[in-house]
């Protein structure tokens, strides 16, 4: 069931208990987890945190821990499957689920005792009504059928014939009604569950809880912002929803950070400040060179078609149009001429409009502490994602989780910078792979789908690609979900006009999937190659994870 009053029905219940937190492996879940951890540490709630990258890990961890805890909190996993069926817990265990995966499984919605959903009901949930799906009088029907069966077996006096005929008619009517109801139920459920999408960020839900209890801080607000930005970067929510949520967060930001505007009473330079920015959409451009950032951001790389020679020419034209000398653009952004950096955003936006890139600027936030440290929300998202998906030799999934979780704290700046470097490598590798796939015509079109197989040793001969993507010795291949505008635009299909679909490479192993959501319905995870699925998107729809 849905929890209406988060504070009373969720927080007050667990405040005196020990809880077990299951957290999925994505940045939104990490941010929600950090906010919840901060609240728990404030109120001395004893908890245990277990990272669960997939369904298998969730089941194993649950089996190990089920005797020790009564209250379980699941973050970004578990809402879209029948949880009680999978985990088989005892009667008195209670699950609190804060998940962005939609649609929410109907069993979870209508279970009154064990499953509590920490999901805001003003999200467009469209859960079917109870009576349409569940029917209480099924037992009566079964008894009737048994009775009718037993009656018809024995010998009957003819006096009861008419009554039996009436009974038979009644029963057939009931059976027909039942069949009709079942057919309708199937249709309703099919409509409800055919598309998967994502709802409000879990980090924002947790921040809301903190705000209701008046325990919200600037740090928690920053984590909520990062969670939301992660959803947008991974194309899990629409632009409209993103803008609405940014508006909500903007109010909180101005509430916490209004002292920065006042010249006399401003805080010291070491305090955290969050500021609203209408900044460029280029990935990591402030920590990289502008040229590299333009080449390796999905949006610009696909619009300018940078995998072809003409694309490179267009890039040069683009830079010339802005009046930025190549030498300046290729060096580190911080070292660029101040005169060029002054109106960079406006100049870029103007030129981008001419080259067909209308959404060059996006509303976002930046955090600022100390003299050197300034990050945009998207920078932090890229860094943390790259740490989460790092495939170093001895790092396991949980090691990466811990490292990524650490990098979100302000005191672990080295981890964050490490993440930024890794993110740069990853972005470069991805774009090289994509460019090679397109150039060597590996992309195959099948009806409304475009797909391409990436073999164990991918195309690009450069060492970058091989280190970050290639699974030597059969290890996992993981890349972050990226907007594959490139593929869409190369095919020149209508998909160009629609917002880009998101997709990700599956693990080469057969048993687990990238994120704990429903098992992929159309992708086969064979051990020798990982298929990559892309489909043109209509509205708030993304393909399988």
């Amino acid at each position: 069931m849905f929890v209406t009053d988060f504070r009373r029905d969720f927080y007050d219940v667990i405040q005196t208990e020990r809880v077990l937190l299951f957290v999925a492996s994505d940045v939104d879940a990490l941010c929600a987890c950090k906010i919840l951890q901060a609240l728990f540490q404030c109120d001395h709630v004893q908890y245990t945190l277990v990272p669960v990258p997939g369904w298998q890990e969730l089941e194993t961890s649950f089996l190990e821990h089920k005797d020790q805890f009564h209250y379980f909190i699941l973050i970004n996993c578990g809402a879209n499957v029948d949880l009680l069926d999978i985990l088989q817990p005892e009667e008195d265990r209670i699950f609190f689920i804060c998940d962005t995966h939609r649609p929410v499984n109907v069993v979870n919605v209508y279970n009154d005792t064990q499953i509590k959903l920490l999901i805001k009901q003003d999200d467009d949930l469209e859960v079917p009504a109870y009576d349409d799906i569940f029917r209480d009088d099924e037992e009566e029907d079964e008894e009737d059928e048994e009775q009718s069966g037993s009656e018809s077996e024995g010998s009957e006096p003819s006096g009861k014939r008419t009554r039996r005929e009436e009974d038979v008619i009644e029963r057939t009517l009931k059976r027909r009604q039942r069949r009709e109801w079942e057919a309708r139920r199937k249709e309703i459920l099919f409509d409800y569950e055919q598309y998967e999408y994502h709802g409000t960020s879990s980090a924002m839900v947790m921040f809301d809880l903190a705000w209701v209890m008046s325990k919200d801080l600037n740090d928690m607000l920053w984590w909520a912002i990062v969670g939301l930005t992660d959803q947008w970067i991974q194309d899990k929510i629409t632009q409209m929803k993103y803008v609405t949520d940014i508006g909500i967060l903007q109010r909180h930001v101005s509430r916490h950070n209004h002292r920065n505007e006042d010249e006399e009473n401003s805080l010291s330079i070491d305090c955290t400040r969050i500021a609203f920015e209408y900044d460029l959409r280029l990935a990591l451009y402030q920590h990289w060179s502008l040229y590299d950032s333009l080449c390796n951001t999905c949006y610009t790389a696909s619009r300018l078609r940078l995998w072809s020679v003409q694309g490179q020419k267009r890039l040069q034209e683009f830079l010339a149009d802005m009046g930025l000398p190549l030498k300046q653009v290729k060096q580190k952004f911080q070292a660029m001429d101040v005169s060029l950096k002054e109106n960079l955003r406006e100049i870029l936006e103007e030129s981008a409009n001419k080259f067909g890139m209308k959404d060059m600027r996006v509303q976002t936030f930046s955090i600022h502490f100390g003299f050197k440290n300034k990050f945009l929300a998207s920078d932090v998202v890229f860094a943390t994602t790259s740490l989460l998906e790092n495939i170093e030799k001895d790092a396991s999934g949980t090691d990466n989780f811990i490292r990524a979780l650490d990098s979100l704290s302000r005191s672990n700046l080295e981890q964050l910078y490490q993440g930024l470097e890794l993110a740069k490598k990853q972005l470069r590798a991805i774009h090289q792979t994509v460019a090679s796939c397109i150039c060597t015509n590996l992309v195959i079109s099948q009806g409304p789908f475009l797909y391409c197989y990436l073999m164990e040793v991918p195309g690009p001969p450069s060492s970058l690609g091989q280190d970050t993507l290639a699974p030597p010795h059969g290890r996992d291949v993981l890349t972050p979900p990226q907007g594959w505008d490139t593929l869409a635009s190369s095919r020149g299909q209508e998909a160009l006009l629609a917002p880009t679909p998101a997709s990700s490479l599956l693990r080469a192993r057969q048993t687990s999937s990238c994120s704990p959501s429903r098992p992929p319905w159309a992708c086969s995870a064979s051990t020798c190659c990982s298929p990559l699925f892309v489909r043109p998107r209509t509205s708030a729809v993304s393909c399988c994870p």
Partner: protein
Amino acid sequence: MGLAPKPDFRGRKEGGAFLAARRRRFRCSWTRVEASVGLAVGGRGAMFCEKAIELIRELHRAPDGQLPAFNDDGIRQVLEEMKALYEQNQSDVNETKSDGRSDLIPTIKFRHSSLLRNRRCIVAYLYDRLLRIRALRWEYGSVIPNALRFHMSAEEVEWFNHYKKSLATYMRCLGGDEGLDITQDMKPPKSLYIEVRCLKDYGEFEVDDGTSVLLKKNSQHFLPRWKCEQLIRQGVLEHVLS
């Protein structure tokens, strides 16, 4: 002579100056003093109290808090030296008394001060060791690791047990019925609970209310401070500072 908690090793210089002064004053009986000194120590250039200073230096070398092995040998040698000096003194005193020879008196005085010096050094050595053993109780709790137990002499072990008993009696009489464990929390803690991360697979770990927590690698827990301290010291858990 007063007892100081920390031994000073100015003794060597003192001995040298003392000897030189004595030499200057009683030059006539110099040869006899020299001869007796040489006889007692049994080697050229060696001095009294050197062994005792060795003991002190050994303790001084061990870093603060560590307990080196009990130097049974050293103590025995010092005691032998003291016995030898004492016997020589005894015979010389008898000689002086009977023969009325006043030229032996400086030698007797010299040997006497060496004896006092030896005694001071040994007492300082033993006392410092006791202080270190006492600190062990506060750091490690009532059970000392075996390695350290071998470093203690039998008497020191007995002393330790007595100390433990006194401390336990004292703690029981504080804080009402259950007593108060004052060896916990030497510094006022910042928080009752701390966040810890598990570095290796440990297994089940019991918490206060009887239930247990499974400590698996890379899981994070928020547990009461006193429960985690043991495991942090062992290296199973790591305190996470955020």
